[in-house]
């Protein structure tokens, strides 16, 4: 069980949205983690510095929050490590071909009413719901 956190989730979601708006306003870029990371893999894109800075900021953020406040950041990875690694490979392959993930398609693309992003988001959400149902309720796993 995880606790239902509508207020914290809404607030956190709004911050994600704020970062998407700011990155578009200042850099003219979609705040999609897939696209940003892709440009950091060799051969790195020529504009790798802003990408690296964005990623670094995203990694440092929880460290700062834990350092300056009493806020707890919940974390639990209930899945065995081999499956975590397998899912990383699957997710990496998937988001490369779909050109985006939850942030790029689900937030930025949907917000600008992109039909591609709407189709992508509907597809990966349904696939995730089905996968969890199959693993937890048909196979009895994790």
């Amino acid at each position: 069980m995880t606790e239902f956190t509508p207020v914290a989730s809404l607030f956190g979601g709004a911050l994600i949205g704020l970062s998407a708006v700011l990155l578009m306003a200042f850099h003219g870029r979609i705040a999609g983690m897939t696209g940003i990371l892709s440009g950091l893999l060799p051969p790195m894109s020529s504009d790798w510095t802003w990408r690296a800075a964005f990623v670094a900021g995203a990694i440092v953020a929880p460290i700062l929050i834990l350092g300056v406040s009493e806020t707890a950041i919940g974390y639990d990875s209930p899945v065995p490590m081999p499956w975590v690694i397998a899912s990383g490979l699957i997710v990496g392959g998937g988001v490369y071909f779909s050109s985006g993930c939850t942030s790029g398609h689900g937030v930025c693309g949907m917000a600008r009413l992109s039909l591609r992003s709407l189709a992508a988001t509907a597809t990966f959400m349904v696939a995730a719901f089905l996968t969890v149902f199959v693993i937890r309720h048909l196979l009895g796993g994790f």
Partner: protein
Amino acid sequence: MQRTLFAGMIGLVFGAGIALSGMANPAKVLNFFDLAGTWDPSLAFVMGGALLVTAIGYRFVLKRDKPVLEARFHLPTSRKLDLPLLGGSAVFGVGWGISGFCPGGAIPALGLGEVSAWAFVGAMLAGIFAARSIRFALGQRATQNA
């Protein structure tokens, strides 16, 4: 320099949003997808909050001629609902449903120092790299952004 600095600060906002919203917590993500079990609807509020702010903000930002620090907006132009988009999305959804990690959720989780998050991100980068190598080997044009 200014571009890099601002990107870092915007990344901080993104990471804070992910961490505070619960998106960095794989157990919470998996419970969102577990309608028939320990359902936790929180992530609907994450998506709702993010979409609302982005949709309103983009309306104002994209009316401008260009972004503050760049010569032009870099927006995806493809309109095709093709196999890479839908097949890739389906594959991503399966992987997301297995572990509860997605790229945007996993990167800030690295800051928590959790081994599972680092393992996921390492494998994910290998997956992106492998997929790109395959596409290059097939001689197709690579697309990079959403």
